[in-house]
């Protein structure tokens, strides 16, 4: 079947089976059940894991088909939010680094939506600096015992499995004493607590591990090689984010140029000029994203340049929410109904913090795009137990 035929068939399947409405951050129990049913259909139709190895439940096709389906799917909204961490990060990591047993056990249920995954790297004391994490895994006769705390974990409240990064050796430098595990989120000692963020809602969770037992066969990669495993996961994360960055999400956004132009007083020349500024910034970023997408299609991999797009999107999000509220005045911040502008200003910092802060993005651009000399590092050689980490009063 040629690519166009593949694309045509994908589209007609989508038209018959997909919604066009918005996906929801937290679909609730009913939503999760519906999402699982949809994933099963998607899998059975052959559109889940399109480029994953056939041996482990994928379709064994190429990136071309994967991309063709994704492009067609952009016009629809698939209820795949709760699976996004598994499909985008955990699954691909197991494909690359999992044991045959792990692949056989986990990949097919993941692709078919039977099991939901989350990723457990960040900690209160290890945000940008993930490798500074403190959660300890101690070897026992038949496996490992884990204690510690993770944070910023999406979909953990629905998750069956987690990809967990732990410290297994404190006597070596921080990057050299980490190990990665598959952890059963239903195991005794795992507590999932919703994390309320500044919007007043719980988009994320905190996870507490209290002497949680993990069987030996759940180790991913080698002991103390967890940092390299995590880099693989983060690479997949970056790919799955950058493929979506800035390409959508503005359509229903009340503070985006197209919405704002209808809600502000363009009779005021100063207001008009501020809308022009917003247009300039939005269009500049949109064109950059389109260029990156065209380059990717042409085989030029954007690499760290995607960090520039992410940084610019974070800044644009903040700029436009700030502008919209300033233009609207008092009613943006005190209202009877609506509150979409207040929501936007509350949510605006999210993109500047999640997936790497603006400072981290600037470091990446400087180091990997411009090849500037690195910051001298004090944390690469010191044994972890002697290293300052987290917050010190």
């Amino acid at each position: 079947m040629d690519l166009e035929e593949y694309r045509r068939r994908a589209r007609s399947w989508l038209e018959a089976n997909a919604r066009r409405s918005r996906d929801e951050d937290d679909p609730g129990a009913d939503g999760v059940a519906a999402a699982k049913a949809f994933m099963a259909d998607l899998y059975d139709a052959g559109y889940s894991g399109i480029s994953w190895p056939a041996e482990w439940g994928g379709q064994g096709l190429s990136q071309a088909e994967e991309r063709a389906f994704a492009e067609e799917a952009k016009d629809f909204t698939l209820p795949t939010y709760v699976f996004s961490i598994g499909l985008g990060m955990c699954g691909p990591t197991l494909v690359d680094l999992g044991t045959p047993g792990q692949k056989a056990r986990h990949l097919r249920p993941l692709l078919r939506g039977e099991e939901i995954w989350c990723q457990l790297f960040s900690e209160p004391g290890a945000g940008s600096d993930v490798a500074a994490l403190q959660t300890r895994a101690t070897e026992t006769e038949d496996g490992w015992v884990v204690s510690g705390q993770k944070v910023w974990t999406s979909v953990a409240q629905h998750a069956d499995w987690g990809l967990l990064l732990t410290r297994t050796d404190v006597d070596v430098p921080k990057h050299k004493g980490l190990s990665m595990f598959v952890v059963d989120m239903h195991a005794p000692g795992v507590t999932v607590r919703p994390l309320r963020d500044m919007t007043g809602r719980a988009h994320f969770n905190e996870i507490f591990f209290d002497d949680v037992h993990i069987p030996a066969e759940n180790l991913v990669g080698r002991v103390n090689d967890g940092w390299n495993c995590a880099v693989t996961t983060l690479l997949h994360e970056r790919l799955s984010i950058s493929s979506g960055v800035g390409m959508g999400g503005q359509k229903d956004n009340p503070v985006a140029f197209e919405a704002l132009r209808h809600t502000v007083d363009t009779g005021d020349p100063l207001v008009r000029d501020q809308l022009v500024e917003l247009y300039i910034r939005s269009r500049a970023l949109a064109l950059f994203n389109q260029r990156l997408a065209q380059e990717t299609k042409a085989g030029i991999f954007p690499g760290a340049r995607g960090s520039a797009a992410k940084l610019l999107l974070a800044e644009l999000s903040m700029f436009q929410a700030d502008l919209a509220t300033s233009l609207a005045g008092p009613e943006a911040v005190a209202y009877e109904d609506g509150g979409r502008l207040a929501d936007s200003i509350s949510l605006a910092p999210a993109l500047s913090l999640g997936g790497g802060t603006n400072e981290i993005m600037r470091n990446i651009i400087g180091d990997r795009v411009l090849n500037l000399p690195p910051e001298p590092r004090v944390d690469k050689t010191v044994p972890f137990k002697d290293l300052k980490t987290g917050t010190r009063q």
Partner: protein
Amino acid sequence: MNLVLTEEQRELRGTVRSFLAAASPLPDVRRAAESESGYDPAVYRRLNGELGLAGLIVPQEYGGAGAGYAELAIVLEETGAALLPGPFLATTLAAILLTELGDKELLPDIAAGTTVATVALDGDRALNGAEADVVLMVDGARVRAVRGGGRTPLTTLDPTRRQARVEAVAGEAVASSEAGMERVRDLFAVAVAAEQLGVLRASLDAIVAYSRIRVAFGRLIGSYQGVKHKLADMHCKLEQAESIVRNAAWAADEAPGELPLAAALAQAYVGRACFEVARDSLLLHGGIGFTWEHDAHLYYKRAKSDEVLLGPPRIHRARLADLLEL
């Protein structure tokens, strides 16, 4: 022009600062904000009783302290920095308005702290409109004092300060004049700018303190120029904002002719600077700054709410253009 605090003014600042640190620390602010009235009346009783702040600028003949705007700005800076919930700013604005109008009826109870008053700033919206005993409604040069009537609480971005829509029922007329209202609006601008200065300072203090104890990649984050240079720029905003607020307060007290320009400058500069600093403080905290439990978002939301409190910020710039005869 006097831009430096006197010994007495520094004492006043110290007194208010210590009082708020003890009586209304941030965990209490959160509890009060989630309570039914949105604030702790016991704190207000002490604030108005022991410290006499409700009557700070009310003339002595009506039971107030007859202090100046220099002192009021010091107090508002502290209540802003502490994010004191409840109607302190609202009642202060009412006291400013009534004092300028030469009111004799309402001021004594306001100064005594027994009447909670507010001003409908934007047609029928008022800070703490649901909690206030009296709402002063302004229509051109006419001011009416409304008691009772419907009060519809609004949802607010800022969880630490409430607003309400006030039904425009009949009320007692308060003497007024067109020229006086211009000055009143300028005085409101000075008062809000003083609060913004406090919010700005507290936001900066918080991130400076955190930069001294938070480690990333083996180093205190304040040692990275990426953080340090941003904090330096924020400090520059603080220095200028403080200078502008002191000047505006001085003009309110001593140089009525200079007040309009000084007040418009205060809103145009300090309102923006306050939001920028609160925003950057939140962002530089990293992920923890995005959590509900952290205080950064309270300052951020107060800063944005204050920035638009007296109208869209462009009106202050437009007023500057007019006053400068551009």
